[in-house]
């Protein structure tokens, strides 16, 4: 083998260098294409630069930091949220949007739909962990509040409220708990494809009062 001269690289070095810059070009292309695509989606109005993505034709998968959320209108309250989260206590909890709630005396989110006897007895409670607080406001109205430290996100009350009531109870990913996994384990198990990515600075999809 010929002696290497310091200012004349050998063939192997030359090849490596060429391939290195080719690889750099490929990485640049990958970065460029993904960024360009992001830019295009923003331009087409599928993503907005700032503010909530309310103008989107669908709940956007935009380029801002994204987090998982449940579309309450797709959710079927199947119960997977309680069992499939990677956290031992699910990051999904029930929320109550008070202006939608009918403040019913007999709430089927709170009571079993087929009780032994229709009364307000505590044994008729639907929630397996007793996480719903029922508070008398004025006759005949009662306020129902979720104690999040007890809620396991099973969605039993959601099903009851959707079937018989106004649907003011629904499940949401709580972002003080959510780990924001790259692949959400509940999303993978969701039967109705209700998990969507939303921008991190506006991470809730609450039902609106008087939604039609």
């Amino acid at each position, binding site marked *: 083998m010929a002696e290497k001269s310091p200012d004349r690289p050998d063939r192997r070095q030359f090849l490596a260098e060429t391939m290195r810059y080719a690889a750099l070009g490929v990485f640049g292309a990958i970065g460029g294409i993904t960024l360009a695509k992001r830019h295009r989606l923003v331009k087409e109005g599928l993503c907005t630069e700032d503010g909530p993505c309310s103008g989107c034709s669908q709940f956007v998968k935009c380029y801002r930091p994204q987090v998982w959320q449940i579309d309450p209108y797709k959710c079927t309250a199947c119960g997977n949220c309680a069992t499939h989260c990677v956290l031992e206590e699910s990051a999904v909890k029930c929320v109550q949007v008070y202006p939608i*709630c009918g403040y019913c005396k007999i709430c089927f989110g709170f009571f079993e739909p087929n009780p032994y006897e229709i009364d307000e007895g505590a044994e008729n409670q639907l929630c397996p962990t007793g996480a719903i607080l029922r508070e008398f406001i004025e006759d005949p109205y009662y306020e129902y509040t979720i104690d999040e430290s007890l809620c396991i996100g099973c969605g039993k009350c959601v099903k009851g409220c959707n079937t018989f009531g106004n649907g003011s109870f629904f499940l949401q990913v709580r972002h003080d708990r959510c780990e924001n996994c790259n692949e959400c384990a509940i999303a993978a198990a969701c039967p109705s494809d209700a998990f969507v990515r939303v921008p991190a600075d506006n991470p809730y999809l609450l039902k609106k009062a008087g939604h039609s």
Partner: protein
Amino acid sequence: MIRFRYIVIGLAAVLILGGLVRAAESRFPPPEFENGHEFPQTTTPQTREGVFAYIDSIVLLGTLGLATYLALKKRRRKAILGLTVFSLLYFGFYREGCICPIGAIQNVTMSFFDPLYAVPIVVIIFFLLPLIFTLFFGRTFCSSVCPLGAIQEIVLLKPISVPRWLESGLRLFAYLYLGLAILFAATGSAFLICRYDPFVGFFRLSGNANILVFGACFLIVGMFVGRPYCRFLCPLGVIFRQISRISKKRVTITPDECIKCRLCEESCPYGAIQKPAEQWTKEQYKKSKIRIAFLLILLPVLIFLGGMIGKSVKNTLAQMHPTVRLAERVRMEETGQVEGTTDASDAFRTTGVENVELYEQASNIRQSFGLGGILLGAFLGFIIGMKLILVSVWRERKDYEADRASCFACGRCFEYCPVEHKKRNERKQQ
């Protein structure tokens, strides 16, 4: 006139139906309280994701730079180990392992195939930075930045050496894993790498039992076999292997002339130190020439065979896609092969989408799996062929050297090299 009547009837119907829908939304009108009670606000605890995303990128850049400096310039095992512990604590236990550059492969892939998916900037940074650093400085990301590598680095107790043929064979799993992960991400089926991340459960101190057991197995094996995940499964690892072969800088064992004391050879738990290669005899040259010629002919055959096998398993692969599973279930329910319904099929029926439409979607997805399966199989055939060719190639090597592809830049060998110690002493005396 008749037309006008129809319009009136139609309008009335719309109004009545609209009214019914509205009633269903609010069966019991929300009360107006007489005692002045006001509706409480629904709490919306905010995510910390937005801020952290940018802090993470800066920390990643900082640790990558530091890892490179420590491995290539400072050459101290203790400092590298310190950074490894920091990365484990920060990226692992504090940030809980998401997002990581390994998983980012899938996000980038998905952005190329899903017309509505754009990758967040942070994910692009997490994907590209380690690649660029590896391209110029070797696998310093693996050494002390990756939390998955870090946790294995720390549990390593008494490494046993893995024979080269076994290591090379087991590495096929990593190529298979990479191929499958890209295929499933491209078809929008699943993020395989995230789903079977063995250590994320430990970082979160919570997770389902299967994954925790899987991770525990890796850690137990990892006490005796250095970094089993990195060497035999990590999909990013096999990409890094290839690009670190052409890196500008690399980890060198000795800072000066190798004195061939062989002390470093035993120090590497990852089998990454190569002995000086002896000159081949004429016989060996001739044999290997014939073998390479044969293997070059075999290569296209392997690619073709791989493609055929990939094509034949497309329906099994397609099962990974939720739409395909749903379509099969709905068809079975429709034809009466199964009794009852599932949550998914119930939810599908409430959407009002026709069954036929679902079947068509599923068959499109199966088709893309057909092409994907062929490409995946061909890719694996190519990898096997190239592996066979590479073992038959002779490369000149005069000293003990760290294999560019396998070296994790952990820095253990520095501490064993007597030349290194001599240099350090000289530096101290100055």
